[in-house]
């Protein structure tokens, strides 16, 4: 698998996969929206049109049964991308296919394959019970009679809302409403599920339970391909097989969290030593073999934790340990730590900005 940074507007280099294994293919997707202008601007230049770019040449693929994350800040273009996938917005350029079907030309068939979980609770009918909400959408998905009723019962059991009885949805907690939204999306047994910030209105415990539900039920048992848009790094880290980092409408990088960390910004280690300013360590830092040295506080026994990053993967880390040991630097512990994804994204975006500034 290859991970690369890309120039603005250019597609990220992605893993070549067998076409039959590809469920979603996004190729050169571009979307601009008109900018609403003020009264004065409209009077001065009535025919001028200004646009904001929401997506610029977005390219990636998602394999069958893969849990794929779209990570980015607010306004990065995640929701626009999802709406195009759900055929709710028409793209300006580029193509999107779901199981080989074009989302613009074959929108009706795509809607049978793909289900967006609209995270807005207001899209539920609050004056109806969960069962009645599901019955309505079962009918809209052509599930009638006993088949529809069976599917509704099945999903209410799966999502844990079977005991809500005749209680109106308006009286549900946010977590219960999210479960109902998921159940609604699963009615048609979709091959692809789109989740747009599904835990944004949940408390930390509710969010954790919801993630467990997604991982264990939706992916492991239902075998759905899932695309999740989120700005919560821990969510993407916990759930996703691969992640695309979206920044101002451009895919900056695609890969597994580990790959993104190791190949783009290196890996972070903690080193416990009695001599944090040892010449061997200083020399390696000067050579650039280790970077971002941060010397922490000393404990009562005199040991200091030094945080460092070693680009080049575990083999380089092994060489660093050998070099430090050869120079008789007193080391009690050398441990590899996972770089927080939020920090990773920040660096990828910053790195990209620097590249653009240089250009």
């Amino acid at each position, binding site marked *: 698998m290859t991970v690369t940074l890309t120039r603005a507007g250019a597609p990220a280099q992605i893993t070549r996969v067998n076409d039959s294994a590809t469920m979603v293919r996004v190729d050169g997707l571009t*979307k601009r*929206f*008109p900018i609403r202008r003020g009264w004065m601007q409209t009077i001065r230049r009535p025919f001028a049109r200004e646009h904001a770019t929401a997506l610029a040449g977005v390219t990636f693929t998602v394999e069958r049964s893969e849990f794929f994350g779209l990570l980015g800040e607010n306004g990065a273009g995640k929701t*626009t991308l999802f*709406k195009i996938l*759900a055929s*709710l*917005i*028409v793209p300006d350029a580029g193509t999107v296919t779901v199981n080989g079907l074009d989302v613009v030309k074959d929108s*009706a068939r795509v*809607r*049978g394959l793909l*289900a*967006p979980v*609209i995270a*807005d609770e*207001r*899209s539920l*009918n609050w*004056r*109806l019970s969960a069962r*009645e909400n599901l*019955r*309505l*959408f079962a*009918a*809209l*998905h*052509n599930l*009638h009679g006993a088949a529809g009723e069976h599917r509704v019962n099945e999903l209410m059991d799966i999502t844990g809302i079977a005991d809500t009885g005749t209680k*109106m949805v308006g009286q549900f907690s946010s977590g219960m409403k999210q479960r109902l939204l998921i159940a*609604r999306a699963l009615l*048609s047994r979709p091959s692809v599920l789109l989740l747009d910030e599904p835990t944004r209105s949940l408390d930390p415990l509710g969010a954790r339970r919801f993630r467990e539900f997604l991982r264990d039920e939706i992916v492991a048992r239902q075998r759905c391909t899932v695309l999740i848009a989120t700005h919560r790094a821990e969510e993407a880290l916990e759930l996703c097989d691969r992640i695309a980092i979206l920044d101002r409408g451009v895919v900056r990088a695609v890969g597994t969290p580990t790959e993104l960390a190791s190949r783009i910004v290196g890996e972070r280690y903690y080193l416990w030593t009695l001599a944090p300013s040892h010449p061997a360590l200083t020399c390696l830092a000067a050579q650039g073999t280790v970077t971002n040295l941060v010397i922490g506080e000393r404990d009562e026994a005199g040991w200091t934790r030094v945080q460092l990053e070693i680009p080049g993967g575990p083999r380089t880390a092994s060489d660093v340990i050998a070099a430090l040991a050869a120079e008789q630097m007193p080391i009690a512990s050398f441990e590899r730590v996972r770089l927080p994804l939020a920090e990773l994204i920040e660096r990828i975006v910053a790195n990209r900005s620097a590249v653009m500034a240089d250009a």
Partner: protein
Amino acid sequence: MHKIFALVRASWLVGASYRMAIITSFGSLIVTVVPVFYIARALQPMMGKVVQGQGGDFFGFVLVGMIAFMFIGIAVGTLPGIISGSVSSGTLEAYLTTPSSLPTVLAGLMSYDFLWSFARAVVLVITGAILGAHIAWGKSLLAIGILALIVLSYLPFGILGASLMLWFRTTGPLPKAVIGLSGFLGGVYYPTHVIPSWLHSVSSAIPLTYGLRALRRVMLEGKPLSAVAPDLGILTLFIVGLCALSVLAFSRALHDAKRTGSLAQY
């Protein structure tokens, strides 16, 4: 039909959850029709001759006008209301992500309002009959057919309003203008021939003028289809022309909404 039935059922369940609203909906009919009865009775000596060609009974004349007017209000106002409400709540997006077509969804969402209005109209007619209005019960089916044509002739204004709602998030003055003009110049409370002659041309451009005249002749005088065929012919021309225009406008508005991503913006 399954989908439309499911949407009507859901709307009914929602409506039924507002119990007081159901009671007041029917209660208000009684409160309205009784004063109308007494006022019409008081005006009968003066208005009897004026409404001679349309039943001759002024109470019956106004009663039929009220029923048709109630339906055109629904035809013009319901669809923009549904679009506005469902765009704001996000339910339109949710419906559009199903394999159901938009016309099916909108038909289902509107049907409840029409069925509810039909139930209210039945209550109005029965109350009117109890109070003494002469109703040609044998022509009920034909009357329902004419009422359906009146609704169809006003539905395009609702579709145009929905298009404006998609484009500009407001219908502007369209629904009020259509309903107001139809109320004043379409012969709801008085026959169109009593209005000033310079307004006749405006009146003749209003579908309700023809639909209501035909409906009264059938409902109150028991006239056969052949007697009202010319009026129904003109009504049909309105339907064809306005439907083509409104469907074109709505298709364009929906395409623009999908292009600008405004289906869920409020």
